[in-house]
C-alpha cells in the first residue's frame, strides 16, 4: 500500500469567471460539438474554442499532461486499427481525427471539474439531487480521510500480526485469503459500525423529520 493522499483539497483556482451551472452547460455544448464535428476544419474550430476555455480556466500542467497521455493512448489504438483496415494513406488521417474528437469531447468536462471548487459543485448538485442522496454524498466525501486512516491502521495492525497482505505477498494467489479475512472483512465491519453511528447521530438531530431540508449558509 502506498502513501498517496486523497485529492480532497480545493482545486488551486478558487474563483471561476462563470457560475458553475453555466460553465457545465457550456462544457456540455462543447462536448456535443466535438462529437458532431466530422471534418478537420470543424475539429480545429472546436479545439480553438476549448483552448480559449482553457486560457480562461487555467487548469494547470498536471491536467495538460493527463490529457496528452489520454490522447496518446487513444490515438495509438484508434489510428492503428484504422491503418490495419484501410492502409496507411487512407487510414491514418481519419484515425487521428476520430482520436482528436474523442479527446475534445472529454476535455471540457475534465477541465470544468478540475477548476470548479468542490463546495460550489456540491451546492450545484444539491439543486438537482434528492436531499437524502445529497446528504449521503456530502457525508461520504467528508469521511474519506477517516476511512483511509481506518484502512491504514487495520492494514498495519494485521501486518504486525503476521498477515501476508503486503503488495509483495499479494503476488502469490494463496495469500489473497489473508487479504480477505484480515483486511477486507474487518474494514467492512468497521464501515457498518461507522454508518450506524452516523445514521443514529443524524436521527437524533431530527434528520428527515421535515420534508423541507434546511442548510447552513455556506461560502
Amino acid at each position, binding site marked *: *500500500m*502506498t502513501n*498517496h493522499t*486523497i485529492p*480532497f483539497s480545493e*482545486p488551486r483556482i478558487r474563483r471561476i469567471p462563470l457560475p458553475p451551472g453555466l460553465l*457545465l452547460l457550456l*462544457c456540455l455544448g462543447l*462536448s456535443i460539438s466535438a*462529437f458532431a464535428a*466530422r471534418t478537420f476544419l470543424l475539429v480545429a474550430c472546436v479545439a480553438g474554442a476549448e483552448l480559449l476555455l482553457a486560457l480562461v480556466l487555467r487548469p494547470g500542467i498536471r491536467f495538460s499532461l493527463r490529457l496528452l497521455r489520454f490522447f496518446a493512448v487513444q490515438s495509438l489504438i*484508434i489510428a492503428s*486499427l*484504422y491503418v490495419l*483496415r484501410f492502409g496507411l494513406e487512407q487510414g491514418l488521417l481519419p484515425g487521428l481525427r*476520430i482520436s482528436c*474528437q*474523442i479527446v475534445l*469531447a*472529454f*476535455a*471540457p*468536462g*475534465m477541465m*470544468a*471539474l*478540475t477548476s470548479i471548487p*468542490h463546495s460550489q*459543485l*456540491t451546492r450545484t*448538485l444539491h439543486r438537482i439531487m434528492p436531499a*437524502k*442522496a445529497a446528504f*449521503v*454524498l456530502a*457525508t*461520504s*466525501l467528508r*469521511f*474519506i480521510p477517516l*476511512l*483511509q486512516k481506518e*484502512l491504514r491502521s487495520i492494514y498495519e495492525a494485521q501486518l504486525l500480526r503476521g498477515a501476508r497482505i503486503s*503488495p509483495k505477498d499479494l503476488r502469490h494467489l494463496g495469500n*489473497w485469503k489473508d487479504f*480477505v*479475512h484480515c483486511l*477486507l*472483512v474487518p*474494514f*467492512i*465491519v468497521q*464501515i*457498518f459500525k*461507522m*454508518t*450506524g453511528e452516523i*445514521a443514529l447521530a*443524524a436521527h437524533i438531530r431530527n*434528520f428527515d423529520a421535515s420534508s423541507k431540508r434546511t442548510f447552513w449558509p455556506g461560502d
Partner: protein
Amino acid sequence: MTAQRKAGLSLHDALFLGFCGVCILIAKMAFHWKLHIPGHSMFFIMFFLLLAKGCVPNRFAATFTGGLSGMMALLMGMGSGGPIHLLKYLIPGLVLDGFGNLFPSCTWRYVPCLAAAATASFSKFFGNAAVDWLVGMELAILLQHALLQSLSAVAFGMLGSLLVPPVMHRLKAHGIIP
C-alpha cells in the same frame, strides 16, 4: 441490515452504500496499480458493487452505489472521461441490480457471482461503443476498439467478484447481515 429495512432505503443503508462508493475510490487510490492495463479498476468496482447488492436488500442498491461513486469521482476530478465517467460506475450497477433481482443469491455463490460480474463488466463495451459511434467511427473498427477495451475489464471484474462470496459468509458469521 434488519428485515424492517426491506421496506425502503434507510439512512443507515444509504450511508453504507455511499461508503461502498467511497471504498471503490479509496481502493483505486490506495493500491494504485501501475499496470497501465485498461479496465483494471473494474476489480474494485465489481467487488464493492456486489457487496453493496448483497448487504442491502434494495432493488437499486448497486445502481445507487455506482451513481454515488461516479459522482464522487467527478467531484474529486478522477478519471479521464469528465461527466461521461459517471457511466463507468452507473451502468455496471444497473446491470448488477438487474442480475441480482433475477438471481437473489448471486452474491453468495461463486458461479452466479462470476456470471453477474462478467455481465456487468461487459457493459463497458456498450459505453465505449456509444462514444465511438457518436464520433462517427467505422462499425468494424468501433466493435474491435470497444471489445479491446472491455475484455480486460471483464477479466478484472470477474477476479474482483471472486472475493465477494467469502466476505459475505464471514459477514453472516459475524452477525452483520441476516
